[in-house]
């Protein structure tokens, strides 16, 4: 059966994920060392150790994401996070920064290393470079690849692959995006946040809901309608007319959709993918339980060669619309 890797932003969500049938849960420490450094989220050292115990007692595993890029002059904070994850009994750590991976491989030779999607290893050369240099055991593939490309990658590498199947969708190559710091000064790579809540303002003006990020208007929707979170790349913008092209207004980068690749699970299995990842450490324990239960049923069905259930999770997706994203070539 394909391994189901599920998000947990809180100890309650971790327990919910394990109880709902997650094979593996990933989470992070409550600081800038992980890419979901959101208010009220994540684990203290004690909570992490207790979370690992809870999971292991029920046959599940915990991965600790330490996937931001250590700040120059303050690398010790990230080094300590790796040591503490190891001590807590994490099955593996998920890392992105080559310097940090080199440190982990040297200092904790028995610790299993996964390459975070934030490392943006999008081709076999990059993946093999990490595998050969540091003994990386699994790579989380960027959400810019088609199923055909994933198949081709798996033919050329010897380590496991993990791909996203549900949740928020980065349209840019992850770990290589400074859109958030352009508008707010805070970025996924440096601070573990994208379009951070502290810079978000919702307001009602002239019968419309407006969402701003760092003071910049990202969404304007009719009053009472859905109010998407103002993630920069899913905002509504306009491109003024040029000499050769008319003006355009709309979701220039991506519509406010989220990823649902349930229907692709059998093809991803055939492509040699080891694990399916669900995004959403910032979502509630209710969300985690529902999504995990549904995907556990889907991977079990795939294992029996049965068709995939469809449309079970529509209500939980942002803006109520779903896409299979880059996995289909037409998305590009």
């Amino acid at each position, binding site marked *: 059966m394909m391994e189901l890797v599920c998000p947990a932003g*809180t100890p309650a969500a971790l327990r919910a994920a394990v109880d709902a049938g997650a094979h593996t849960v990933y989470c992070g420490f409550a600081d800038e060392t992980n890419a979901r450094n*959101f208010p*009220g*989220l994540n684990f203290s050292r004690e909570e992490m150790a207790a979370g690992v115990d809870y999971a292991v007692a029920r046959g599940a595993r915990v991965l600790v994401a330490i996937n931001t890029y250590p700040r120059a002059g303050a690398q010790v904070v990230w080094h300590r996070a790796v040591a503490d994850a190891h001590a807590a009994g994490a099955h593996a750590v998920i890392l992105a920064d080559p310097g940090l991976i080199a440190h982990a491989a040297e200092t904790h030779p028995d610790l299993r290393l996964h390459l975070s999607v934030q490392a943006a290893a999008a081709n076999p050369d990059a993946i093999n470079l990490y595998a050969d240099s540091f003994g990386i055991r699994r790579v989380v593939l960027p959400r810019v690849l088609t199923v055909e490309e994933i198949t081709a990658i798996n033919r050329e590498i010897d380590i496991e692959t993990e791909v996203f199947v549900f949740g928020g969708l980065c349209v840019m190559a992850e770990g290589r995006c400074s859109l958030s710091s352009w508008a707010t000064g805070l970025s996924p790579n440096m601070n573990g946040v994208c379009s951070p809540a502290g810079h978000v303002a919702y307001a009602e003006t002239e019968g419309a809901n407006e969402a701003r990020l760092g003071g910049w208007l990202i969404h304007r929707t009719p009053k009472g*309608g*859905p109010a998407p979170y103002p993630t920069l790349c899913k905002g509504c913008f306009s491109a003024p007319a040029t000499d050769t092209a008319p003006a355009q207004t709309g979701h220039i980068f991506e519509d406010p959709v989220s990823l649902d690749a349930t229907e692709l699970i059998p093809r991803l299995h055939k492509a040699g993918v080891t694990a399916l990842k669900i995004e959403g450490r910032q979502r509630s324990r209710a*969300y985690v*339980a529902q999504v995990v239960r549904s995907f556990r049923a889907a991977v079990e069905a795939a294992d029996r060669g049965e068709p995939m259930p469809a449309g079970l999770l529509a209500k939980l997706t942002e803006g*109520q619309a779903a896409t299979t994203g880059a996995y289909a070539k037409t998305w590009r």
Partner: protein
Amino acid sequence: MTQTPALPRLLGPLALLPLATPALGLALTRLLRRIARQKPAILARLGDARSARFLIDVTDGPVILLIEPEPRRITASRRDRPEPVHDAAIRGRMAAFLAMLHGREDGDALFFSGELAITGDTGAVLALRNALDDAELDLTEELAALSRPPLDRWLRHASALVARRSGFVLSREEPQP
């Protein structure tokens, strides 16, 4: 989501009594202090948002609530009075609040669909939502814990009855196996 007005109608007359609003605030403050004692992780999770003032506007409820985590105080005020000063506000129907609090619905899904609307300090609202989600609160049990037997038993019965009649989520959702 079902939008049945049974609970607001039940609570409606309360707001008309001149002394009811302060009394409600006192009762809720007592509840908040108990929760803060039992689950100190909530305040730890809130971080900087501990000092924020949250306005909870249950639009089909009789009163507006101001929650101040640091002094552990909840103040109720009448809807026809000016809104108290606050840093962040969450507005929506009772059913949406209760569903989020008890883990029936995901906060993000309620925000994205417009069932709950946020203004002010979005970061503080996120911290509050995440802290409450982790706390796995059960309002019925918390209220029952504040009552002496046999009142607590009656309260649980009444809560279950109201929940069935109104469709409101009045207890913590346990994940179905």
